[in-house]
């Protein structure tokens, strides 16, 4: 492991849905200022890992450590207060609140202190949201909701940003923008990002390191370049669509 202390470290976590084991002994970590990608097939348990970091569901064994503190048993809202923000699977925006209100909810940790500043940043990133500022979240198109979910997560001024498939349902152009923006934020503010992606190529290009998950087990890890070059990874996640 690196000399620096990891910002997030997940150690031997097992998570169950009822009696079904979704994660078995998952160990991953993210150093401060790192972008880490988690790739794998659908149903491999990637989203479960994201939710387990947030304590929903809670890990049955193993530990989740954030900034030297064991957060495995911490209630979810207290985990969020440690400045871990998530753009979750299925977007989970507040459908009856306007775009503005959704962003305000994201900024509630600081009692809206930096709202103007941060919302400007989000609107720069997603000009589309600015056009729809007074529209209710539920009436946005799918892709716009995705933008809102990411924007809301950014409003929390996170130290660790968890992104569950940020590119889902977005136009190629927007995906490019988002990935560039994440890189930018990462460079300028040192934001640590942990992201799950189906778009394995884009994610690995963006990330410093990556993990590959199969059936709830991390089967491979390494630098993005190593993973991109690995024939197994290439065969399984990068090339299926190209023939």
């Amino acid at each position: 492991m690196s000399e620096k202390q990891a910002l997030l470290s997940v150690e031997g976590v097992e998570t169950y849905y009822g009696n079904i084991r979704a994660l078995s002994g998952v160990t991953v970590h993210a150093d401060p200022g790192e972008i880490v990608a988690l790739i794998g097939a659908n149903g491999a348990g990637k989203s479960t890992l994201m939710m387990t970091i947030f304590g929903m569901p809670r890990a049955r064994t193993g530990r989740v450590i954030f900034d030297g503190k064991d957060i495995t048993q911490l209630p979810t809202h207290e985990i969020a207060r440690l400045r871990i923000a998530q753009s979750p699977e299925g977007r989970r925006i507040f459908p009856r609140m306007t775009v503005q209100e959704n962003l305000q909810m994201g900024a509630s940790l600081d009692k809206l202190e930096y709202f103007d500043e941060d919302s400007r940043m989000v609107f720069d990133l997603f000009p589309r949201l600015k056009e729809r500022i007074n529209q209710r979240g539920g009436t946005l198109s799918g892709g716009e909701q995705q933008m809102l979910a990411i924007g809301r997560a950014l409003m929390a001024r996170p130290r660790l940003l968890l992104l569950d498939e940020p590119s889902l349902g977005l136009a190629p152009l927007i995906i490019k923008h988002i990935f560039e923006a994440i890189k930018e934020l990462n460079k300028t503010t040192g934001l640590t990002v942990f992201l799950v992606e189906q778009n394995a190529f884009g994610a690995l290009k963006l990330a410093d390191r990556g993990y590959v998950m199969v059936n709830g087990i991390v089967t491979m890890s390494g630098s993005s370049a190593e993973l991109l070059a690995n024939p197994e990874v290439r065969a399984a996640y990068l090339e299926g669509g190209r023939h």
Partner: protein
Amino acid sequence: MADVQKIEPDSVFAKAVKEGLLAGALAFGLFFLIVGFRTDQNIRNELVLNQRWGLLAIFVLVAGIGRFLLTAYITPWSEARSKNKRAAVEKEQSAFRKSFPKIGLGLLLIYPFLVILILWAYNGSIMGGLQGSLKYVDNFGIQILIYVMLAWGLNIVVGLAGLLDLGYVAFYAVGAYSYALLSTHFGLSFWLLLPMAGIFAALWGIMLGFPVLRLRGDYLAIVTLAFGEIIRLVLINWTVVTKGTFGISGIAKATLFGIPFTPGPTGFAALLGLPNSGVYYKIFLYYLILLLALLTAWVTIRLRRMPIGRAWEALREDEIACRSLGINTTTTKLTAFATGAMFGGFAGSFFAARQGFVSPESFVFLESAIILAIVVLGGMGSLVGIAIAAAVMIGGTELLRELEFLKRIFGPDFTPELYRMLLFGLAMIVVMVWKPRGFVGNREPSAFLHKRKMVSSEFTKEGHG
């Protein structure tokens, strides 16, 4: 990861002692004034303060020791148990569960005779057995089965179609008054009026259905609640027809193939040469309601395997997806309302025939709430679960009337019946905490390709109205 703060859990025993002491202190603070002191009037009408330190000590000790035992032994034990049993016990249970409905049905079929036999042996005389069984057949058997039937009827609307109906008792009332009025005014027989009451109730179900089709969730619940109240208020105020709060009395009893259950020479007992007793009518009613309840169950089971039943359940899961598959959700909802209401109507006409008297007081909102509670407790959609819930809830509250020994503990002015609703509520909370999706939360699929597997309650939805 060397400098991670180690949060080592205290040993269970120390934790338990701590929590026990805390619970004791809490109980002391809570009961110090309430239990520790008691004001009484003495013979000169003066207020005197009695101190009851002993009683207070008992309260505090029970709380403290109880909490200690719970933390130190019971919780670890149950956790260990639930961890161990996960895979293994599931199969054993399913074997018992599979045969449970059959065993239950068998017991229900012989229940009246079982009661008579037991009481006969206990009292030593056949008459003693017959008369003694009256209470058990009527208060327990028939009462519970009425609620089983009502809950099974409501289950079609709430459990299958996912439409929250808080006014179900209105259909029960429609059935009861249909029988009461048509039989007193036109002298029609029970067997003719039974289906008619069902049809009337179904019509009312459709009438209610039309305006509320666009509503969902909370709004639907409130409108159905209002509908139930409207029916009751009409029954109270339309005195010309319904005789208002006086109710309708002298309603004809049901007959068995034309044989009345009367003491006269043409009565049932005389014809069969049996000693005179009111118990035959009760036993007859018991089998009648059992038959009606089983009819409800049979129709429900059949309907679930038909396209309409599947459409109901699909409606509960996702209405928009239903429409995208070409299902007319309007008629689907209406049929659910109508079918549910019809069984309510059957139960209503049975109720009128059993009581011989109906009044609006029998159809208050509380009844709707109890029926709904049974459906929720039993597990929405599950017939077996609902039957168990009805037996526990209705049987339990009936049982409370019997608990004379409680008087010996709490003093002679303690009336257990008064605590009926309190216990009812407590029981509901306990069950909902223990089993949030009811006794039987799993759903049985209506068709299968390889093997019938129960669908875990994690996946089913409650519906949105």
